């Protein structure tokens, strides 16, 4: 399907796949938007200690519930302060670290589980496939929020517990999609060639199958990262996720809920941050999917 390096049709076709990817990506508006916003949030998270105007845990009780600048506050606290007098901007910046960390680690754990199951099921078929399909069905039948809440309540709400629970629960989409992708790739000649050449099984799975389903893998990884971030915020909001005084965005919304009547910006600000992060990750993922799919690399 795609123009390969051995068939130069025009000047453009000589671009390497990577060059072609960037060429297409630069012209994909959603991808550019997602990438820019995401890069900004990542930079903010990394450099939070340098940017943040105050200590996110420092309580100044005389400065409680200062409004943000655009609602008549001062530049001393650009986004105001919360009910304990902590600087809201600083908490927001440090909160980005928690969201990104949870998204990345949870998506990685579930990617490892789901990809392994998916590739094995797709490559071997038969009984292995039946077992994996069974596991997927069991996982889908379990209500994620409920099980996550229960586990956090019973084991305690540390960052490690929350990340592990989400990582162990969100692998279903990886398994479903990579199973069918592997099935398609498996029938292509070079896999048969590798088998005939006597390549070892791990080598075939790792060198021949995995690179050819990698774009699916990346797209689902972004989706599940966004999913994990939203779920962490929801769990923390319900009081059974990350525990105070950590500046999780979900927890900030939960704490702001008490002031809903008078200070609605306390929930608006972290909510908008959460929305932007999830939107950026989704658009970034959708962009990668749009840009890589028409290449016909699988």
């Amino acid at each position, binding site marked *: 399907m795609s123009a390969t390096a051995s068939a130069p049709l025009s000047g453009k076709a000589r671009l390497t796949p990577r060059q072609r990817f960037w060429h297409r990506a630069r012209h994909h508006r959603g991808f550019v938007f997602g990438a820019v916003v995401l890069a900004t949030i990542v930079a903010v998270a990394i450099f939070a200690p340098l940017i943040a105007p105050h200590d996110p845990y420092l309580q100044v009780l005389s400065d409680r519930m200062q409004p943000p600048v655009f609602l008549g506050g001062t530049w001393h606290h650009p986004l105001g302060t919360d009910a304990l007098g902590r600087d809201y901007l600083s908490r927001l910046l440090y909160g980005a670290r928690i969201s990104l960390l949870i998204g990345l680690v949870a998506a990685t754990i579930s990617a490892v589980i789901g990809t392994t199951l998916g590739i094995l099921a797709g490559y071997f078929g038969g009984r292995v496939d039946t077992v994996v399909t*069974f596991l997927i069905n*069991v996982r889908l039948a*379990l*209500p994620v929020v409920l099980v996550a*809440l229960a586990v956090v*309540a019973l084991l305690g709400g540390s960052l490690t517990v929350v990340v592990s629970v989400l990582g162990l629960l969100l692998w279903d989409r990886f398994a479903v999609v990579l199973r069918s992708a592997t099935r398609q790739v498996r029938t292509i000649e070079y896999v048969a060639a590798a088998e005939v050449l006597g390549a070892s099984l791990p080598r075939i799975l790792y060198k021949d199958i995995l690179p050819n389903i990698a774009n699916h893998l990346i797209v689902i990884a972004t989706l599940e990262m966004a999913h994990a971030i939203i779920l962490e915020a929801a769990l923390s909001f319900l009081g059974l996720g990350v525990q105070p005084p950590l500046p999780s965005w979900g927890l900030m*919304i939960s704490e702001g*809920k008490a002031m809903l009547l008078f200070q609605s910006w306390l929930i608006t600000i972290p909510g908008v941050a959460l*929305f932007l992060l*999830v939107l950026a990750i989704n658009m970034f993922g959708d962009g990668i999917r749009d840009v890589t799919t028409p290449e016909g690399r699988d």
Partner: protein
Amino acid sequence: MAVLVALTVSIISFSLLYLSGDPAVAMAGENADDAAIQAIREGYGFDRPFIVQYGDWLFSALRGDFGESYYFRVPVSEVIADRLQITMLLGLFSTSFALVVAIPLGVAAALWPNSIIDRAALFLSVVGQAIPSFWFGLILIVIFAIDLRLLPASGSGTWAGFVLPTVVLGYYATPAIMRLTRTGMLEVLSADYVRTARAKGLPAPNIVFKHALRNAIIPVVSLAAVQMGFMLGGSVVVESVFALHGAGYLAWESISRNDLPTMQALVLIFSMFYIAFTILADVVNAWLDPRLRVS
């Protein structure tokens, strides 16, 4: 397969009890002495082997007996029954809401691809999926309950109390249904029999709704059934935001209060509902699509 899945899920729901280590210690509380813990252990039968406890629990559960709630001190089944009605109602409303919004949008998007409607629908679905439901709920409370004073912020006493939770729970299922309607319609609209209908000179609405939509909607119906299963899980968050006293809110309450029997029962019931809805989706699909029945 479904039976095996259900059995495995029941084992998982039962094992949740042991996740914290010793359930007797968890129940007794922090300041209990050894004698009190031992009394609870014997009273609730935690000293028996795991398999015996599980078998006992499962057979009682099959008869609708989930034991006694630690918190309410009444049978769990009694506590759940009322609450489940509210959640079922909410699920039904939300699914209807999602279908009513998503199908017309999907059809319009397919009729005029790349038009403003199509782009707006796509934009809405991308944005919609990024809004956390609990936050969306709070924002709606601020707008409709506090600023405009149109709808109640919480409670399930009146019909009005269901409006905001329905919107919040329903919008989450909307993008998926809309996209599926759009792809289905695009496919069907380019099919031969639609071209024939056009050539015969049938009026356009007739073609779209009688010929095209009826076929395009088949996968949507099964998606809606599966989404309803997911909504039961989503109800935990939404009902807590609106303090709607359904099964989802009960789940949150029982988890926060360490009411393990109620929690176990709810995990099991929610899973069973999901399994039932997926089976229902298959049945409805076969009924709607004669091609599936033949093969």
